[in-house]
């Protein structure tokens, strides 16, 4: 029973971890898109605005 509980906790933590990485990636890409629409690119050498 304890083993099953432990595995469930591990799976929940892993799912939360994947969700967190997904949110970081999506937030970064949204930020990069927004900075171009506002005309204020932060790192134009690496992430330029493509017209």
């Amino acid at each position, binding site marked *: 029973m304890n083993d099953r509980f432990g595995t469930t906790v591990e799976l929940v933590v*892993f799912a939360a*971890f994947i969700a967190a*990485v*997904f949110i970081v990636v*999506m937030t970064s*890409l949204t930020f*990069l898109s927004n900075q171009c629409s506002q005309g204020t690119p932060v790192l134009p050498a690496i*992430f330029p605005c*493509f*017209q």
Partner: protein
Amino acid sequence: MEMAAWETFIRSTALHVFIRTYEPWVWPACETLHYLGLSILLGTVGLFDLRVLGLAKGIPIESIHRLIPWGIGGYVVNILTGIIFFVGHPDQYFYNNAFRLKALFMVVAGLNVLAFYGTSAFRELKTLGPDAEPPLRAKVIAGTSLSMWVAVLICGRLLTFYRPPFFH
């Protein structure tokens, strides 16, 4: 947008012409290999990272580390198929922030590998018993590795949604 000199050069290569001529077969075949490569990479390196982070205690870390050459094989397959994708449609990757972010995560993952094998982190792990707690430094490296490869996977899937608003 005007076509840059490097892109004109890539489009003049025999590899580009080959990919575009046989695209209905080359592209799906390479996509399939790319997915297999990433599955093998994450299935081995990711498993190793999870073990270092504390999952599946009882399995010696050294035993799981024997799978790493498979992960390297998957990585090589992905680099080769990735080159084919880039040469086939360079504009769709170069002018794409999801691709640039993916490349950035791959660079960090590469530096992380150097930190793991270039320092004493790996040597410390090899000497640990099956139930011993890995040192914090190894856990940080494993956590970074897992995060970077998952981020690379996500960015790869998101490439389609961040294509440039033009085709050359």
